[in-house]
């Protein structure tokens, strides 16, 4: 479980997050939705400690993360897996070496055990015969899947995904979404996904938090979202003609 209390962050006197409080539950896919520039990525980066919040607290289970020194923070980070918007695979390493990286850095596994874990993770994300390819030789969807494989290599307790479907076609989007949901349930981890993709919300949004201009505007499940009377959320969810027509049909 991850708890955020009264988090605020500004850049050059521009307030990006305002007094944000929320609890993300374990074993569920928690989605943060909102328009581009609403503060989703900043929130995620404040939670994992890549940005220092101006005010507020972040708790990883019972541990107050903000107060820890950099060494103790690093220990928590070893339990975090993160999927970045662009994948953030290491360019100079092959697929296999990317997944090997955290194992090499933080485990005492022997070569055989490491190989086994790499192959397990790559199989888990349905990547085959690509062990020796470089990230530049992979499609966007494959890069995201390899990034997931790398993120789960150390069996994390927390998984963060920053717009995992950006730049992907609808089919690949469904593959990535399902993968994130399956992994969350399988490992019983706390997963937080940043997205503005409504398909993802409907597919995997067990808990959905809507962020608007840096503040928490609404929270609920994907089932509640269609019936909400929140004006800003409605404008966001039913922004396209397709979703508008779907709503007209259902009502």
């Amino acid at each position, binding site marked *: 479980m991850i708890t955020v209390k009264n988090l605020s962050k500004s850049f050059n006197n521009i307030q990006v997050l305002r007094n944000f409080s929320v609890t993300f539950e374990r074993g569920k896919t928690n989605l943060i939705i909102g328009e581009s520039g609403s503060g989703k990525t900043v929130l995620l*980066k404040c939670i*994992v*400690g*890549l940005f220092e919040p101006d005010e507020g607290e972040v708790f990883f289970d019972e541990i107050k993360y903000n107060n820890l020194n950099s060494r103790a923070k*690093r*220990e*928590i*980070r*070893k339990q*975090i*897996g*993160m999927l*970045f*918007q*662009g994948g*953030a*695979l*290491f*360019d100079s390493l092959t697929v296999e070496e990317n997944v090997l*990286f*955290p194992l*090499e*850095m*933080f485990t005492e596994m022997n070569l055989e055990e490491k190989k086994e874990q790499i192959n397990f993770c790559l199989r888990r994300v349905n990547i085959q015969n690509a062990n020796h390819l470089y990230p530049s030789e992979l499609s966007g969807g494959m890069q995201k899947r390899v990034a997931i494989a790398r993120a789960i290599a150390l069996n994390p307790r927390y998984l*963060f995904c920053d717009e995992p479907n950006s730049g992907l076609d609808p089919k690949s989007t469904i593959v990535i979404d399902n993968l994130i949901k399956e992994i969350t349930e399988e490992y019983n981890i706390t997963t937080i996904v940043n997205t503005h993709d409504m398909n993802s919300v409907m597919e995997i949004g067990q808990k959905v938090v809507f962020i608007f201009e840096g503040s928490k505007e609404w929270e609920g499940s994907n089932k509640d979202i269609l019936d909400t009377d929140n004006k800003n959320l409605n404008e966001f969810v039913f922004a396209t003609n397709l979703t508008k027509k779907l709503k007209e049909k259902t009502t």
Partner: protein
Amino acid sequence: MQFFYNIGKYFIFLGKVFAKPENFKVYYRQIIKEIENLGINSIAIVAIISVFIGAVITIQTAINITNPLFPKYVISLTVRDSILLEFSSSVVALILAGKIGSNIASEIGTMRITEQIDALEIFGVNSASYLVLPKIIATMLFNPFLTVMSILVGISGGYIAGIASGKLTSQEYLYGIQYSFVPFYVIYGIIKTVVFAFIITSVSAYNGYYVSGGSLEVGKASTKAVVYSSVTILFFNVLLTFLLLT
């Protein structure tokens, strides 16, 4: 004010770079990799430039010594001391600042803007140390070999040019490069090389590490890396010369 801000930030950055590594085995492998990337891959350019500079110094000195009272071996003596004292350490360092400095800044800068550095931090890795320390150690270990090689190749280039142009005989050249030789000049050159290697790597890495924005900023960081490391090299060249030779 910005100058002092950057100096302070640079030293904080160095503090992060020299923090205790998470895994020595991984760092050791990185050092070997960087020796190949930054050191072995620079052998050809250093050799080519050294041989031509050695040749040019020989010809220019021969042309400029018109007084018949000067013995011919003064030409090779000049070549030796120019190469030992200045060319193989300082000029080669400036060339390497252009070659490996821009390489380091753009590599680390690209990693920054594509969130690869964030990914390292999320893994709990000290990204500054992991990315920069192996490069610093690799260049500080390998660049002295480049300097020694540059000295040998430069003097050989001078020999070839001197003999081929008929400006002096083989005997005169060999006599000149041994005449009144000060072994400390080699040590002086190597000390400068080690200091310059540290400057090139750390200043360039600093410029790449704090890039924000996109590819345009990576390009700017790469240019800054070359300019700042070159200026710092020139400053320390004077300082070290003053400290070691006076």
